[in-house]
């Protein structure tokens, strides 16, 4: 296989397999969690499940009163990383072309100069959270090998993507192969790691708000 053949495979079957595993894996994991079920609440309610659950999905995106230094760092670094990542993912022209091939429609892209910045911002934020994970005694106490694995899986497509846009040490094609491989590995890994929080966060927040809302509590 030469580089062109590898690229063709990665863009064809490789992409299909990884997207399928990503989507089916996330659906499977979500359904698996939900179907454990919970017992019906027999206590007379003082509120409801639905709307308080929805409200908590929104409220937990905000700083709460009493947010500490650790909280501010976590939230700000978290937002910075996610925004940088999502803008890079959804507004680079080449990415949009890929989405068009899957979804059948496209949207306007941002200039490469801006994507350069958003990618670097996401990388910088990831480095910051890694340092925080190693240095902060609380976060370090909670850290296991999966946290480092998830970090490597996440930063790899960003770095290889940046290299593909700015080929220095490698050729464009080599960098592109590494980029697509790392992205496909990430897609496959998401459902099996803590990265599946991309779906479960909304359900968890909803449950929290709903469990409280039933009792007439704001959460």
């Amino acid at each position: 296989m030469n580089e062109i053949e590898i690229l063709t495979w990665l863009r064809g079957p490789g992409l299909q397999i990884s997207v399928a595993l990503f989507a089916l894996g996330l659906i499977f994991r979500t359904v698996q969690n939900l179907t454990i079920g919970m017992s019906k609440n027999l206590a007379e309610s003082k509120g409801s499940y639905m709307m308080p659950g929805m409200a908590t999905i929104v409220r937990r995106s905000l700083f709460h009163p009493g947010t500490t230094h650790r909280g501010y760092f976590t939230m700000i670094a978290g937002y910075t990383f996610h925004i940088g990542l999502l803008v890079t993912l959804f507004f680079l022209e080449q990415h949009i072309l890929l989405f068009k091939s899957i979804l059948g429609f496209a949207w306007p892209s941002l200039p490469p100069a801006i994507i350069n910045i958003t990618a670097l911002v996401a990388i910088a934020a990831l480095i910051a959270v890694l340092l925080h994970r190693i240095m902060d005694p609380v976060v370090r106490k909670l850290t296991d090998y999966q946290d480092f694995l998830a970090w490597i899986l996440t930063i790899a497509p960003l770095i290889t993507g940046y290299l593909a846009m700015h080929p220095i040490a490698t050729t464009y094609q080599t960098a592109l192969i590494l980029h697509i491989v790392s992205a496909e590995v990430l897609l496959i890994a998401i459902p099996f790691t803590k990265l599946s929080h991309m779906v479960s966060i909304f359900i968890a927040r909803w449950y929290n708000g709903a469990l409280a809302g039933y009792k007439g509590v704001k959460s």
Partner: protein
Amino acid sequence: MSAPSSTAHRAIAALVEQIDAPTATFFTSCVHCGMCADACLFYTETQDPKYIPIYKLLPMRKVWQQEFTFWGRLMKAAGLAKPITHEELDEWEELVFDSCTLCGRCSLVCPMGNDITYMIRKFREGMTAAGHAPSDLKAAMKRAIELGSPMGVSLATLKAQIKHAEQELGYEVPIDKQGADYMMLLSSAEIAQFHEIIPAVSRIFKAAGVSWTLCSEAFEGTNTGIQIGASDLAAELVERIVAGAEKLKVKTVISPECGHAYMALRWEGPNLIGRPYPFKVVHILELLDDLRQQGKLKTKGKDATRMTYHDPCQIARRGGIVEQPRNLLNEVAQNFVDMEEHGEFNWCCGGGGGVSANERAMPRRLDVFSRKKKQLDDIKVDRIVTACSNCRNMLEEGLEHYRMDNIEVVGLTETIAQYLDESA
């Protein structure tokens, strides 16, 4: 790898039963950010990372991973997963029972939305099923089942208190009155220590024209079963109240000034016994505020003392009763001031969730009271009003420990009774 030891086996079986859709979703969502640490007074006051709320759930997380997730099951099947051990559970007993009051503050700040307290409540079921519960809580549980009260308070003690109250009041305190609208429960501490509560409710209900009664077969509102995490025993205690209420054919049962009693009776009770109640449950604060709104509870005079209100966790953050006590205090207090973090965000007294009943937990409980001390130092009050006899004891002990016992601690119901307008 090695098979789990026998107590760990029992814990695993109990935890598998406890893990439900919310629990699995919460564990799936945790990104190990540590923001819950700053919501827990056991962490903030000691700065020891072992008190991070989500860390207290590590063994339960392992069980979830190994029994419920694809990777975990694969690793377990391949013999690569380490099962939880007897020693691990022994070590965690201190974290789950001595250093968590189920106060619920962590559940309020988790950016993922994890209700950590909900999970710790469940973890305790697994710990207790495997025998890993503090001996003091086991003893309290035994007294509650055998004697009807975790503190060993008997019907004779209650009757003696009623007699005292009747002498003071000059009229009868209703007990076992068939067909009354309300049946009042009390906490052991109210019967044993806070003697002012029976005269206070008697006077308030008389002035408001409320038809009520005590019940000789069901007067204890507390429930050690939900603290230790023994649902079967907790259910038995709830059944006693249901039987008493059904026998007297009351419409409503009143939960006393006690945090976990309200949680046990109002929110967990029907789920513990597996059927809805044939009566309603209200907290005494809800009832008093209703009576106030209906114009049936009138007060006269105002108290000029600078005072604040300490929200019991299970009543405010976990129970939803935040406005009512403030409405009531507003009637009688001229100089009321809230602590900066209050209501849903109030800091725990340090002794809820069974911690106060666990003697070996006392030194740390008093140590972490420094959080409440800071809150109080900020507002400089002369009196704390609260609505939980356990909080009240914890506040008094904490204030004494920090030489702040110039601050008085009182119950809300008795405060209202003190200013009751009985002329109407």
